[in-house]
Every structure is written in structure tokens, then in C-alpha cells.
């Protein structure tokens, strides 16, 4: 078992992984990674490795769940047994069921539900490796998968967490900081509409600390948003570049 570290922030003000309090972990995004899903995306955020796939809009099964005036969005957040230090049973845990719900509720505001009555959109998120902040990384990847599938959206949804560690408000908690720190505030945002679609918190924060944490998380969101847009563009820009080279030969 790992020993609890004494201090999470050292004398130089650096965290356990060398980051400054307002620094994000490295983020890598790829769009269109699965050939069967209508839309897909892969994210590496710190040590988190998460795959998101979207099917739909498609026929509703079972039929009685269909809604006459809008689409039904379903979401499944699931962690692979080997994703965490101690093997996790593949059966859905209560945490996964709650996260499936809040992730779905963070993405629904972006989808034009009324456009496709009597259909269903399935969002699947598989956590291959977890290291704190998986729900945020999951939302970031799932939003890209939705955009990749061609489902019309109001905006991309991007998520990031902030929290409190050793009396300091920090951005993007990794696993140890999440477990040992005194607060964790995951936030999801539709940046162009300034709309917060996910907000949770556990720990203890004064209202002022809470405000700082939320604002810091929103800043983190905006940084990751730029990477999301880049990932969507890259898929198409690289083809453009190839052809330009061919033409110049």
C-alpha cells in the first residue's frame, strides 16, 4: 500500500509531479480512432487513458423508451478492471452509475435533442487507465466523439477539475492529490456559451475558496478547449497538407 505523502506541495511551491499550482497535466487528444463507432475520440490526460465512442442517432431499443419529440441520450462510463492499482470488478459500481448520469447530463445541454425525435444516441466511455480526474477527461473525449459523429452540437463540452491541497487552490488534481487533498471540484463548460454543465464538489471549502477553485477550473477548461478544436481540425488539415505537397511536386 502507498504511504500517504506528508506534504503535497514542497518548499518551492511545486507539487508531487513537479507542477505549479495553476499548471495542467499534459493532454493529448485524437479524433476518429475507432472504425465502427459513428464517432470516437481518445484522450490521454496525465496518466489517464480514456476512449470514447458514440453510436447514433439510431433506432431506440427497447422501443417503448423512445420519446415522440426528442432523442434519448444514454451514457455509460465504465472502468476497465486493470485501470486502477487494485483490480476493479468489471460489474458496474455505484460510482460508475452515478458518473454515467452526471456525464450524460453534462453533454445533453450541447445536443439539439429536439432535432431527432424517436431516436437514441449512445455514448460509451471506457477508462483504460485512471489517475484522478477521469470524469473530466471522459467528458472532454465524449464531446469530441459526438462532434466526430456528425451530431449537431451547440458547442463542444470541455471539463477540468480544481481543488485544494495543503491550503493551496490547485488546478487539475492527479490521483494522490484527489485522495489526500482537502477538496476536489470538477467542472464542465460549454465555453462559447459560458455554460457550466457539470459541477460537483467533495471536501471542505469556504465560499471564497470555492469561487477561486471554480474560476481556476474554468481557466483550465478553456486551455483544453483549444486542444479539442485543434484535434478536430488536425484530422482534416493533415489531408489538406498532403495534397498541397503532391500538387507542388
Amino acid at each position, binding site marked *: 500500500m502507498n504511504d500517504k505523502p506528508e506534504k503535497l506541495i514542497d518548499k518551492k511551491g511545486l507539487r508531487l509531479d513537479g507542477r505549479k499550482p495553476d499548471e495542467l497535466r499534459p493532454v493529448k487528444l485524437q479524433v476518429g480512432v475507432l472504425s465502427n463507432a459513428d464517432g470516437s475520440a481518445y484522450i490521454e490526460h496525465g496518466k489517464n487513458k480514456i476512449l470514447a465512442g458514440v453510436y447514433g442517432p439510431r433506432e431506440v431499443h427497447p422501443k417503448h423508451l423512445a420519446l415522440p419529440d426528442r432523442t434519448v441520450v444514454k451514457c455509460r462510463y465504465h472502468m476497465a478492471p486493470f485501470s486502477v492499482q487494485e483490480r476493479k470488478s468489471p460489474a458496474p459500481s455505484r460510482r460508475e452509475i452515478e458518473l*454515467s*448520469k*452526471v456525464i450524460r*447530463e453534462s453533454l445533453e445541454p450541447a445536443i439539439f435533442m429536439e432535432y431527432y425525435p424517436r431516436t437514441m444516441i449512445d455514448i460509451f466511455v471506457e477508462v483504460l487507465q485512471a489517475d484522478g480526474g477521469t470524469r473530466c477527461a471522459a467528458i472532454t473525449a465524449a464531446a469530441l466523439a459526438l462532434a466526430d459523429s456528425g451530431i449537431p452540437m451547440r458547442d463542444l463540452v470541455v471539463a477540468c477539475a480544481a481543488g485544494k491541497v495543503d491550503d493551496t487552490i490547485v488546478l487539475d488534481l492527479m490521483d494522490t492529490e484527489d485522495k489526500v487533498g482537502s477538496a476536489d471540484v470538477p467542472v464542465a463548460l*460549454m465555453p462559447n456559451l459560458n*455554460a457550466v454543465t457539470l*459541477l*460537483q*464538489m467533495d471536501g471542505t*471549502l469556504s465560499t471564497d475558496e470555492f469561487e477561486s477553485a471554480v474560476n481556476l477550473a474554468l481557466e483550465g477548461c478553456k486551455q483544453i478547449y483549444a486542444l479539442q478544436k485543434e484535434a478536430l481540425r488536425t484530422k482534416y488539415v493533415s489531408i489538406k497538407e498532403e495534397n498541397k505537397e503532391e500538387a507542388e511536386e
Partner: protein
Amino acid sequence: MATVITRVKQKQITQLIDKGKRLDGRGLTDYREIKIEQGIIEKAEGSAKVLLGKTEVVVGVKIEAGEPFSDTPNEGVLTVNAELVPLASPGFEPGPPDENSIELARIVDRGIRESKALDTEKLCLEPGKKVFVVFVDVYVLNHDGNLIDASALAAMAALLNTKMGKYEYKDGEVKMKPGYEPLPIKKHPITVTCVKIGDKLVVDPWLEEEQVMDARISMAIDDDDNICAIQKGGSGYFEPKQVFEAAKLAKEKSREMRKKLNW
């Protein structure tokens, strides 16, 4: 399926709220009448019934001896479960807990756990081997809106009502002695839920307001005005400034309630 709310009613509710009024005459930040009764289930170690308007929730607390979690060998265990029993609403179906009852249980759990309301270190019998497990079971009997606040209140009231038998721990066995003592409770978290309707925040939504809302946000506040748990729910969104407004409201209303309840 839950009963559909008519468009006429939807409009009625939203138009009134836009003017700062509600169908039942309350102000936008007023709670409905709250009635709390403790000790209603004698066979449980602790119990409470809360009536929040017409929403009715009963919580029973049972205590058993068990094993601690490996990462907290010196602490007792708190476990919260919630059931949305079918008779409480036409929309509740029998079966294993669905995402709504799981979410409800976890929100109530977080309020109690993160505020450190229950001093779990005092529930240890033999470190690493035997501790007391506190089972908090939330039973929703009638759903007329704001199950979260009603359940959180009932859970806290039930814990405060709980009498643990006095015990002696010898040779790996828990031996009961005569007499009772209360649970070691340090804090009294109170959860306040607001919903967004139009661009207004409304506290303690009743059923039809929940059917009309954009989104809801619940915040658990402890005795020192700190926020311990937050959960946004619903398919809509909040602007950041509305989030901070909700935090202010939660602080205000929890203070009011704590004073009224004398917690």
C-alpha cells in the same frame, strides 16, 4: 412513466417565477413547511421522518460490527443507501436501485462524509479488524419535489437520534453492556437545493417546478459555513455567476435552518 406536465401549467409556473412569485405563494428563496419526527422506528438504532411540504422521507439507521476498509483501518464505516419505493411516485418502478436512487444516496453520503459529521475514528473496536458499520437507509415514501434536501435532513436527524448500545470488546467479540450512548457526531451539515427556471434561482423546488427546471444544484454546508459537497443535476446549465449566487443562497438558508432546528 411520470405524469406529463401540461404546457399551460409550464407556462404558468415560468411566468410567475419570472415575476418573483410561485404557484404555492412562496417567495423564490422560501422553503416549504418542514416537520421532523425522530425515533419513529423502535427496531432501528436511530430513525427520523421528514415532511418537506408533501415530500415524505423516512431514514433508518442500523449499526453492525464489521471489517474496516483497508485504507482506513482505524475508522468505522458509513454506508448510505436510498430507495425510491414504487408507492412514492407513479414514475418509480420496482427493482434494483436505478441511477436516480444511487445518485441520491451518494449525495446524502457526501454531505455527511465530507463534513466529517460522524467521527468514524471513535467507531473503531480493533484497528484493522473490527469496527462499527453505520447503515443509513433512506426510504422515500412520497415524491413531491426536492428529495435531496428532505433525505439529507432525515439522514442527519436519524443519526442524531441514534442510540448505540454500550459495548465491551474482548477476545475478538463485541459484548453488549446495559445502557446506550449517542453516535459521535461532530458536525451538522445541511443541504440546500436550488433549481434554475428561466434565469431565476428557486430554492426547494416542488415536483412541478422540477419538471419545468433547466437544471438543479445542491450544496451541503457545515456548521462553519463551509461548502462540503456539491452536485449539479439535470440536462441544463448554469452560468458561473449563478453558481456563486447559489452558494450564497445555500449559506444563507442553511444558517436559517440550523438555527430553527437548533443543530
